[in-house]
Structure formats: structure tokens, C-alpha cells
């Protein structure tokens, strides 16, 4: 009888996989649905997975927060995580955050992918931070394929900017320079061959961010 109830290796692996890709705590009910098992079994499975992480002294733990399960870094390692956040992440955020927030403000409701297309770079991390800070919030789902989450600005955002309502946002200029204008301007930059060959070689590796930040140095 016990044997029947023991979830298969596959289900416990699937639990790990789902928890790994989740970006917020997952409710037991949803896990049960995805794994096609009982909610009770989900709780048992999670308990044993949590125990296993502990036993094996992994760098992460499985916890239940806000009514859902999630992996998070082990608390005794927070020093490393902090260093990672400070050294690796923070620098890219501030300028990017303002632009991303501006895009959400003017183009809401908007999905992460749409915002990324406008900025030309991935904005997932920035959007998450803006959401965690309360500036933006989920407002629905796209009806198209993929049903992407749509985001909009919050009242925190309005307070931060000192506005009463979104209607008070300054209107955008009727004319944003189109690609042709920028392209034509660029033609005026008169590349010489040596520079171009140089560029082409570096092509992929070079990080744009650095290049243009350095202009101000």
C-alpha cells in the first residue's frame, strides 16, 4: 500500500524542475495540478525534498513562503549572494531602470518582451526589480499566444513622480526620430576602413554599454 503512494522518481524530479524555473513561490495546488498528484502528496514531496537539500548541505534550501514553495539561497551564504548582487548586478540597474519604467509608463499595458523590444536589451531582471519595489504591477495577460503577463504602473509610481494620474504624464513628442533619420545621421559619421575592420572583428564581444558610458569619462 505504501509503495503505491510513493511518488515516482520522475514526479520528484519534475517538482525540482518546476520549482527551479518558477520566479515566485508556487502554491501547492498549482504544483499538484502540474505534477498530476494530490496536494497532500505535494506537501510530502516538498518536505522530503527540503530535508534532502539540508542533508546534502546544498547551497540552496526549499522553503514555504507566502503560501507557496520556492528554492532560495541558504541563509548562511547570504554574504556571497550580497557580494554577487553588489558586484555583478547593481551597476547595470539604475540607468536601465529609469528607461524601463518610462517605457512601462507610456506603453502600458505592456509585456516584458515588448519592453525588451523597445529597449533593445533583455529587461526581465529590471522589470522584476521594479515590480519588487512596487513601481510596476501585473495588470493582466495578453490574449495572444503565450499569454504573456502585462504590466502597468502603480500608485507608488504616481507618488514617486508626484503625479495625480497617468493623464498628467507629459505627452510624447509627435515625432520620435525614426530609423531612417538615425541611419542618415550615422552615415554622416564617415567611418574609415580601419575602424570598420576593427569593429567587425570585435563585433560580438564588445559591450555597448561600456563604450558609451566611457564617452563621459
Amino acid at each position, binding site marked *: 500500500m505504501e509503495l503505491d503512494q510513493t511518488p515516482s522518481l520522475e514526479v520528484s524530479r519534475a517538482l525540482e524542475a518546476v520549482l527551479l524555473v518558477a520566479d515566485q513561490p508556487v502554491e501547492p495546488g498549482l504544483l499538484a495540478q502540474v505534477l498530476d498528484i494530490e496536494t497532500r502528496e505535494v506537501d510530502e514531496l516538498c518536505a522530503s525534498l527540503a530535508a534532502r537539500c539540508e542533508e546534502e548541505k546544498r547551497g540552496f534550501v526549499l522553503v514555504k513562503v507566502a503560501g507557496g514553495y520556492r528554492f532560495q539561497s541558504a541563509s548562511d551564504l547570504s554574504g556571497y549572494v550580497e557580494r554577487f548582487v553588489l558586484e555583478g548586478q547593481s551597476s547595470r540597474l539604475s540607468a536601465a531602470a529609469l528607461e524601463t519604467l*518610462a517605457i512601462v509608463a507610456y506603453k502600458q499595458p505592456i509585456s516584458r518582451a515588448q519592453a525588451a523590444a523597445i529597449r533593445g536589451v533583455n529587461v526581465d531582471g529590471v522589470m522584476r526589480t521594479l515590480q519588487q519595489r512596487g513601481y510596476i504591477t501585473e495588470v493582466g495577460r495578453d490574449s495572444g499566444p503565450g499569454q504573456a503577463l502585462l504590466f502597468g504602473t502603480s500608485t507608488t509610481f504616481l507618488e514617486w513622480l508626484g503625479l495625480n494620474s497617468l493623464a498628467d504624464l507629459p505627452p510624447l513628442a509627435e515625432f520620435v526620430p525614426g530609423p531612417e533619420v538615425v541611419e542618415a545621421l550615422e552615415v554622416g559619421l564617415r567611418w574609415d576602413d580601419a575602424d570598420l575592420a576593427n569593429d567587425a572583428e570585435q563585433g560580438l564581444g564588445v559591450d555597448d554599454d561600456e563604450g558609451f558610458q566611457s*564617452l563621459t569619462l
Partner: protein
Amino acid sequence: MPYAVTTTVFEGPFDLLLHLIMKEQVDLYEVSLSTIVDAYLCELERMTTASETLDLEVATEFLLIAATLVELKTRRLLPGRDDVDLDDELALWEERDVLLARLLECKTFKDAASVLGALATTAGRSHPRTAGVDERFINLVPDLPTGVTPMQLRTAFLRAATPKPVPRVDLAHMTMIRATVADAVAELIDELPRVGRISFKRLTGELVERLEVIVRFLAILELFKQGLIDLEQAITFGDIEVVWQNRTVDLTDGLNDGTVDLTGVDLTDYALAGIDTYEG
């Protein structure tokens, strides 16, 4: 010539020609040029009649190849091939070889594409973790600056929505360059009201360093965003006319607004952010 009409949509002439030749090879092994040419023309006719809206450009691409094929075929049908001009003959050979080479190249990338597609499908079965840091660490991530004005938010949007200039700056040059966008903005604000209208070429004509040109270009974009100048372009790829908008601008206002920092010394966080946004 009986030719089974396919429902396949052919992306281009090479696509079609490859399909026909490879199909014939499977069917007959011994392929004849006539069969290929006729099938090609049949297909072309089908495409033209099937949609009245056949893109002229697409049609032209198909017809160009058709012309080559037909020439190859007629060459063979002409009697007395001995008196054919040797130059013509060679030219035709060459044309055929070029066509052959292009077909091979096309086939190479077609096969490469299907392998890349398979790689992507495999990779797509594995989903990355993207959760990022949890709320315990959120305070380490810098918050947005306070005191941002609605106008600055609007500027940030325009910056983000402006197509990014392509130039990549060689970092090796950096140490030698003193020009900053703020300096260039100041120069332009000084110069433009006097000339009123000037072409971008002339405006950058005396600059030697490419970086200086880029800096001036960024400054122009900056001024344009702020409505201080207008840009006109008669034809695509033509020179750009930079036109000073003849309005009284209180420069101190600009400073208070935080949109332009003309001192170039005391750059506010915002101005720095403004300049670094011409990133990719």
C-alpha cells in the same frame, strides 16, 4: 508537361529550383534541363496566376533565374552549335556555374538551418532559472533616484525608444578624448543660433576624430529631443539639415529642469544617465 502542382510556398527562385532538381533526381535519377526549366516556368506561371498580388520584387527575382534557365535551354536547342560565338558560349557556361554555385550555397544554408532549428528545439526543452534575488536582498539593489521629474521620465522614454546608433567606440581611444556630450551641447547651443541652419556634414566637417563626430551626433540628438533644434532630410540617406528652433530659450530653465547640463563639470546623476543611454 504534366507537373503536379505543389502547395508548397517557395520562398525564392533558388528554393524552387532546388526543390525541382532534387525532386527530379529522386524520381528519375537522370535529370534533364528541359524538365527543370519547364517545371520552373510552370510553377512561376502558377504563382503569377494564383495571386494577382505577387510582389513585383519577388516576381523579378524569379524571372531573373527563369531568364538564365531559358537561355541555357535555348542554347541547347539552337542548331549548328559550332558557329556559336565562343565568348557567348563561355559567358553562358559562366552563368551556369554561378547559378550552380549559388544553388549549392543555398542548399548548404538550408541544411544548416534545419540543424540549427533542431538545436533550438532541443535547447527549448530546458528552461532557465530567472527568478533573481528574493526580497531578502532587494535592498541591495539600488532604488530609483528620488526627485525625478515627469519631463525627465519622458526624456528617458524617448531615449529608450530612439533606435540605437550603431557606432561602437574603440575603448583604446578613450584616454585621448576630452570631448563630452555636455561640452558638445554647449558648443552647439552657442553656435547654432548664429548660423540658424546648417547641414550635419558641415557641422562635423572640421572634426578629425571619429569620436568627436559621434559626440557631436549625440549632442544633436539630445538637442533634438529637447526641441531646441529641428532635423530635416530631403531624401533618404541625404544629408541632414540641422535647424535652430528660433525660440527664446532660458538656459537657466534648462538647468533647473535638469534636462541639459551645460557646465560639463557638475554633471548630475541624471545627465550622466542621459548620456549613457546611447547604449545597445
